[in-house]
């Protein structure tokens, strides 16, 4: 079977409303895919299905040919960066970045070194002791990114991580993230509703197109009139 992620025929109904209707999505083991589509079309839901946070009504999610049905979110080793960071408010920056290492049982000294390395990677060296509510929007997103990278995920899902930032900053961060993921060989699904951003961060574009029974996926940008 093929390497990497293979989503096949995934359908989801939330609260009685059909959201996804037989969606397919493939991501190669070193590939970065942009997921385009108008807001509210179900992009976030698809990411949550892949992460194991939502159980689909039908269809399958496979990794390297192994079905992930029944594998809970915390055993999938698939990272997720949320739209608005969702940093733990009761932990400082180091506590957030080191969270996944703690869960994996990494010792304190090793954790400290790894947190420092990751913060350097996202350009926030020395931010360890900062309270998360003192960070700017851009800084919070970088911390969220470092946090997601810490457990060395086999796939990283990014849910419009820079959507709230202004265009310049968004594109700069987008390029940085792309280079960083490439350097580490981590495949990614990058959700956006911006064509240009999609072209910038990803090797390939997939568009979710709204339909009567939920969204369906199509290869390429603009297939369903994706908005900028």
């Amino acid at each position, binding site marked *: 079977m093929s390497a990497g992620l293979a989503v096949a025929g995934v359908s989801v109904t939330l609260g009685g409303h059909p959201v996804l209707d037989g969606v397919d999505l493939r991501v190669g083991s070193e590939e970065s895919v942009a997921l385009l589509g108008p807001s509210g079309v179900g992009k976030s839901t698809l990411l949550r299905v892949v992460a194991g*946070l939502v159980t689909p009504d039908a269809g399958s999610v496979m990794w390297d040919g192994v079905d992930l049905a029944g594998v809970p979110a915390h055993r999938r080793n*698939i990272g997720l960066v*949320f739209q608005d960071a969702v940093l733990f408010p009761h932990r400082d920056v180091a506590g957030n970045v080191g969270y996944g290492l703690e*869960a*994996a049982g990494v010792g304190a000294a090793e954790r400290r070194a790894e947190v420092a390395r990751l913060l350097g990677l996202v350009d926030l060296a020395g931010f360890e002791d900062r309270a998360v509510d003192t960070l700017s929007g851009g800084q919070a997103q970088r911390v969220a990114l470092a946090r997601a990278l810490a457990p060395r995920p086999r796939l990283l899902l990014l849910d419009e991580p820079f959507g709230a930032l202004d265009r310049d900053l968004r594109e700069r961060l987008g390029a940085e993230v792309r280079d960083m993921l490439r350097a580490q060989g981590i495949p990614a699904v990058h959700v956006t509703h911006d064509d240009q951003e999609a072209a910038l961060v990803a090797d390939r574009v997939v568009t979710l197109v709204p339909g009567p029974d939920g969204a369906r996926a199509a290869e390429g940008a603009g297939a369903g009139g994706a908005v900028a």
Partner: protein
Amino acid sequence: MQPPSAWWFGLLPVAFVGVFFAWPLLTVLHRGLSPEGLDVLGSAATWRVVRFTTVQALLSTALTVALGLPAAYAVHRLDFRGRRLVLSMLTVPFVLPTVVVGAAFRALLPESWTGTLAAIVVAHVFFNIAVVVRVVGGFWTHLDHRWEDAARTLGAGPLTVWRTVTWPLLRPAVLAASALVFLFTFTSFGVVLVLGGPTTTTIEVEIYRRTVQLFDLPGAATLCVLQILAVLLVLVVAGRLQRRLSVRQRLARASVALRPVRAAADRTVLAVTLVEAVLVALPVLALVAQSFRVGDHWGLDWWRALGVEGPTTRDVAAWDSIRVSLSYAAAAVLIAVVVGGAAACAIAYTRRGGDLLDTGLMLPLGTSAVTVGFGLLITFAVPPVDLRGSWIIVPIGQALVAIPLVVRTVLPVLRSLDPRLREVAATLGSSPARTWRSIDLPVLSRALGVGAGFAAAVSLGEFGATSFLARTDAPTLPIQIGRLLSRPGEVNSGQAAALSVVLVVVTALAVLATERLRHPSAGAL
């Protein structure tokens, strides 16, 4: 623009609370700190009472929180059929009059349980589980579930998520609920008077015993002071802890979507919650059953006996206490609505003075009803103002307990009134008084209707203050129930059960009547 008479609104509540709360409280302090009162602190029996009060409150709180947390989670985070019914079943006990709770557990538990620590703790858990479900659950509903999602995608299993994310964020709410439950059980009177015994007595019951049986007023006053100090201590400690543990966090504005019951852990929590809901219904069912159980068959004997003037209920027929209760409630509601309404206006229309008045009016809520009643008794039973034997003192005591609720109901509504409406009225040539009548009053009267319902419920079920103030020939329903329960035999317990059912029905009608008036923006406690 402010209505010009803002300060005038404040006069009445300040005078009322000053005369009927502050003065009695000062009298209690004065008597309690006198040498003859302080004698009581030298007695080993006193410290046994203090110790028992603390131990039972700690046990009750721990158990209430332990059982309340899973229920709070189930009814506020899980999607299952009958969720609303379970929520109501778990919250209904809290609105039951305390003496009815006592009567229900006397009906449910075997007689050998009366006077035991276990009986008191079980009744306290039954009564207070609603506090945990409401306070913690309300917070839980708005706790962004994505923090937990983030933790899961970072490799944290269910237990780790609970330990490292959910619990730290929930802790302040759990602490707040625990502090409330501790205060309620520490100052518990009705339940302990009915279910306790000679060795299982709280400070509140001891105050009552010293006043009514031993006529040791200075000793009772000292116990009141002790009680007030203990309550203050708990409030200070809880406040400190809360500040230290609280986490600045954005709460989800809308409530978080309920999730289907899938995980095994969720199924276990749901099962526990359903069992709790059934257990909570048992005492009430036992009470109703007891009112129809005559010896070994079913009958209406106890219900018929309610109308008979006989040796069983001193001079009055039990039915008479309905009339007494309703007329006292009418007076208490009138006082609470007028004083509380004026207070809400004063608080809403003035700035600094208003906040001060707000705090001052909440004080009776923090003081136990027993202290309120005892204070009124020792202050107004002596010249120059001897109200002993006057019926009005009872509704006054009940109104003191109800006024904070009326203020809390009315204030948010008044504050939500767009000030520009008054400005428009003024530019149309309306005088300030006319503006108030035409703009504020319609909104106010509706909110006052809701407040009146709360006041009626409080007055009808009030036991702590009323025990000290009611005349023996004019007992209210709770007092009559308490009397019946203090006497042995099936005749008395059967009538007490029947009268408890009557009290619950009357109270429920009062509350239901006001639910219909409920303004969407009327605040709840």
